[in-house]
Every structure is written in C-alpha cells, then in structure tokens.
C-alpha cells in the first residue's frame, strides 16, 4: 500500500457516458486528470456535476465506459484501499445524532484504522492538523448539530482532507460558505494540491523520495458555481453543458465568456480592472447582447434545471 502512496495520482475517464433517466448528461467522455492539477467542474443545474463526481469516485457505475485510477479500474479496487487513495466530499451531510467535531473528522481516518478500529495518536494528529488548517481549532469539542451550515461545511472539508488521499473530489465545497471562507478554503486546498506527499512513510525514509520527487503527486477536483473563484484558484476546468457535451482544458481557455455563455444559456462578459478580472452576466436589456443569442443553444433541455445537479 505504501508503495502506492508515493506515486503521483492519475485518474482517467475512458469513454464514460452518464445518463439521468432518458437524458444523456455526458456522452463518450475520455479524459485523464493528472497530478498537480486543480480542476473545477462547472455547468448549469442538472448538468451532471454530482453524477460525474460520484462516478469518478467509484460510487456510481458509468452507464457506459469506465474510470481508472492509477491505471486500475475503479471496480477492481478493494474499497478500503480505494479510500486511502481518493477522498470524496459528498454534497451536504445530514447529521441524525449529535457528535463532537473531532469525532466526525476522525471518522475519515477509517481507511487507515487497523486492529479493533481505534484511532492512534497519528490519526488524532491528522485530525487536529486538518481542523487547524480550516480555522476550526477551537471547534474541536463542539457538537456538529450546533454548527451553522457554513461551519458544518468547513468541518466536512477538513474531514475529507484528513483522509490523506492524494486525490480529492469535492462536491460543492463552497456551498454555505461566506466569501472570506470560500477564499480561505480554496487557498488551503490549492496549497494542499501543490504540496508534495508528506505521509509518515515519506518522513521515515527521507532522502530518496524527497530529492527524487519534487513533482506534484496530488490532484483536486471540485464542482463550483462561482466561475470567478474557479478562474482564480483552479488550474483547469471541465465545463458540462448537460446535453452530453463537455469542454476540458486550462481554466482560462474553458471558462471564457463564449463557452460559459453557451453552457449556462445566459450571456456572460469578461470585465477587467487592472490584474483583476471577472465574468459577469451581461445586461440582457441592452440590444447588443440581445443579439448575442446565436451563442445560446436551441436545445431547450439545457436551460431547464430539473433534477439535482
């Protein structure tokens, strides 16, 4: 297992097709996500962002094609070893029973437990470190039922981080967060993705791995509605149109006014102020954007936001 941990992660979708009912969300999608990349998955409601993340995590079988992690099909991975290699933050956890924040975060150490399943000191250290990284150090003893939506979401992200998997898939990690926490979380996640592997194994066998592999080994995929935060923090973007099509590439080549307008069915324009730039909705009332209609597709299904994304 430890031999795997020091290898750069690679996730690849091979001719993946995703359907929801009669609708095709994604058709014949082939792509490899490499280590060191931070991907934003964007698209309108119901375009299949959640479905795609669940498929890439191995929680759902694609309707056609398959997904490989480190060259091995997801269905061939033993579940616990897969969980050591990739972490998934599902959308909005629901708590039925009270539990302390520390206990909830420690649950994500499950793939690393051995024996009778009691956490060791290093598991606790990982949990404390992850909580501190998201400014949650003083929340350790709080009851999760007493947290606000945003606080609960940050706890969930910290928990996912403390799983220590080199591939992280996050479904709407910024939901419920206010602006400075959105930026704080993305900064922490981006720093995590750039960091080289720092597993205890690597620390014990110092020289060889440190010197030979300064290359990035981790990868991060997250779905997000804020295209500007995506442009700022992601290196790459995958834009789903919800009708089978997907555009993948460097974030500034994909989240462009033209492509985003087409995918979201609403004209967007890029405004600049010095180094800062932002994609904003164009004012529809003005005539020149009314004539920008050619960008919008005639496919009515793309505009309707029906099932959950």
């Amino acid at each position, binding site marked *: 297992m430890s031999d795997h941990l020091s290898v750069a992660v690679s996730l690849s979708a091979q001719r993946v097709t995703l359907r929801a009912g009669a609708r095709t969300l994604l058709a014949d999608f082939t792509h490899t996500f490499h280590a060191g990349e931070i991907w934003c998955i964007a698209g309108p409601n119901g375009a299949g962002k959640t479905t795609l993340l669940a498929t890439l995590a191995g929680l759902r079988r694609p309707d056609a094609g398959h997904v490989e992690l480190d060259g091995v099909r997801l269905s061939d991975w033993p*579940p616990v070893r897969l969980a050591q290699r990739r972490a998934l933050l599902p959308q909005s956890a*629901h708590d039925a029973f009270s539990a302390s924040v520390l206990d909830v975060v420690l649950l994500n150490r*499950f793939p690393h*437990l051995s024996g*009778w399943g009691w956490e060791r000191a290093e598991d606790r250290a990982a949990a404390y470190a992850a909580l501190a990284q998201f400014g949650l150090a003083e929340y350790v003893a709080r009851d999760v039922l007493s947290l606000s939506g945003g606080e609960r979401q940050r706890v969930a992200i910290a928990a996912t981080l403390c799983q220590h998997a080199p591939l992280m898939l996050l479904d709407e990690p910024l939901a419920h967060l206010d602006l400075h926490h959105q930026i704080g979380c993305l900064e922490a996640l981006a720093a995590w993705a750039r960091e080289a592997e720092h597993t205890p194994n690597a620390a014990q066998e110092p020289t060889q791995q440190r010197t030979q592999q300064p290359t990035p080994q981790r990868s991060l995929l997250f779905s997000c509605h804020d295209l500007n935060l995506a442009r700022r923090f992601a290196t790459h973007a995958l834009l789903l149109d919800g009708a089978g099509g997907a555009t993948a590439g460097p974030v500034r080549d994909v989240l462009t006014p033209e492509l985003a307008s087409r995918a979201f069915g609403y004209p967007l324009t890029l405004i600049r102020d010095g180094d800062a730039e932002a994609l904003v909705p164009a004012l529809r009332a003005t005539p020149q954007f009314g004539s920008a209609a050619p960008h919008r597709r005639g496919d009515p299904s793309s505009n309707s936001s029906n099932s959950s994304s």
Partner: protein
Amino acid sequence: MTARRAAAIWAVLAVLALAVLVASLALGSVPVAPARVLAALLAPLQDGQATPYTHGASGDLAGEIVRTLRLPRALAGFSCGALLALAGALLQVLLRNPLAEPYVLGVSGGAATFALFAMMAGCATWMVDASACAGAFASILLVLGLARGELWRGEAQQASPRLLLTGAVIAAGWGAVITLLLTVAPEGRLRGMLFWLTGDLNGGTLPWSALAALLLALLAIVPAAPQLNVLLRGDATARALGVPVARLRLRIYLVASLATAAAVTTAGTIGFIGLVVPHMLRLVLGNDQRMLLPAAALAGGAAVMGADLVARTAIAPAQLPVGVITALAGVPVFLWMLLHRRR
C-alpha cells in the same frame, strides 16, 4: 473516545450489572445474605466433595431458591435486556432514526401474534416459545423480502425511510391481529396473554438460548463497530470511506432482528429498554458505536434485572410484569435526561 476510556466504561457497567445480579439473587420474599448467595452458586461445583457442615436444612432451601428460582430469572432478565438494548442501538444506526427501537420493524409483533395463537390453543410453554420464535422469523423474512431492495440499494440517497415504513406497516398489521386475538380469546387465558405481551420473566429454566444469542450477536457485530460509526454519517460518506454499505446494512438488520427474536421468545415484549438504554448512554457517554454496543448490552441487562427485582418485590408476594416497571421508570428518566441536556 479512546480504547482505554471505553474499557473503563465497560468495567463500571459490568460492576453495576454484577451488583444488580447479586441483589436479584439476595432479595425477595426469602432474603439470602450475599455470602450465602455465593455459597449457593458454588455449591453445585463442589458436588462430590463433602458437603460443608455449615449448611443446615434452611441453608439448602435458600440455596435451592437462589439456584432454581432467582438465578434463571435474573440471567433471563440480563440476557433479554442486553439483547434488546443492543438491537435498539443497532436499529437506530441502521435507520438513522433516533426513535427506532427493536419492535419498530415488526419482529416482536410477529412473535407476539404467533405466541398468542399458541396460548389461545392452550399449548404448553415450550410450544408458545417455539411459536414466538417462528413468528419472529416469519416477520424478519417478510420485511426482508419486501424491503430487500432498500437494504441492498447502494445508491447515494437514503434508503432507510422505506425500510422503516415497510417494517412499521407490518408491525401495525401484527398489532391489528393481536388486538383481534385478545378480543376473541377465552376469559381464562386473557391474563396470561396480557402478561406475555407486557413482558414477563417467569421462565423457570436457565435461559441458555438467550445467553448464547447474546454472545453470538456481540461477536457478529462488535468487530463492525467502526464501520457503523461511519454509516451514521450517511451512505455516500460511508461508501466513499470504503465501507461496503449494502452488506453492512444486511448484517445489522439480521443481528438486530435475531437479537430481538431471542429476547422476545424468552420474555415476551419488554418495552422501552431498546429505546431508552441506548439513548441514555448516548446522552451521557457519546455515540461511538465501538463503546456503545457492548455498553448498551451491559446497561440493558442491568436495567431489566433491576426492573424485575422491583417487579417481584414492590408489592410482594404479588408479582408485576417486568415490562410495566421498565416503561414506568423509563419514560420519566428518559424525558428528564432529554430535557436537561445542556449544549
């Protein structure tokens, strides 16, 4: 929660259970001193050796009472309480619903219906027990057959509400049949039937089957306790962490149902233990299943033994059904703990 803290909790609860056991053996219409209780328990082991001369005729009588009347009853109480509390804790995790209890999925209803049929027909006690067991199994299979898809469904969405509803509807169906049986039952059998329904420990023989069921249930589920912790946070999270959710759900359902079946077959439907004991432990000690499952077994066992001690001494020489005591004590204690909880 650390392993050391859990072990300390189990030790305290075990001492408590042992104290209640000794009290159950010592107290009653013929009080027996704790030292004599010990002597009475050890006496069969010393068979073949010379009988200690300190035992006069009255000593033998006390020993008989302890060995043949009180010990089987106390052990039946312990094993049933432990099984019910364990089953309750498991079903609360499986259904992710704090109001779940061992009888919510209809196991007890099936057992009661079959047992009451047997009692109406005037069958012997062992036949009543056998039919209760058959009824419990029939109900387990019925729910499993109807809600199989809900247990196995590996999808991200919650599967529990439909399983809960299936079980609850079947339980309601059994309830209707039980009411019907009580309505048409002959006057002379009615009292016995009501006692069975409330839960009654008047057995007579050592409850080996219930004790064995308790041991098996603990062996089958305690190793999976870390997975149960993860399952509590939702199916998607559990699967992402490498827990085989569908298999685990089936395992929980089977262990909880069989534990309930064993308890109900031994002592009828003793109420409230399965709901109240796991919750009280959760409120005081936290919701870590690794600690909670063994702790629930110990505390549930002690609770039913204690309730039975009250049931047979409160208005002695008359005896109350133990289920009346568990309900009467459980409701206010639970409400108090719930309402006085500070966060």
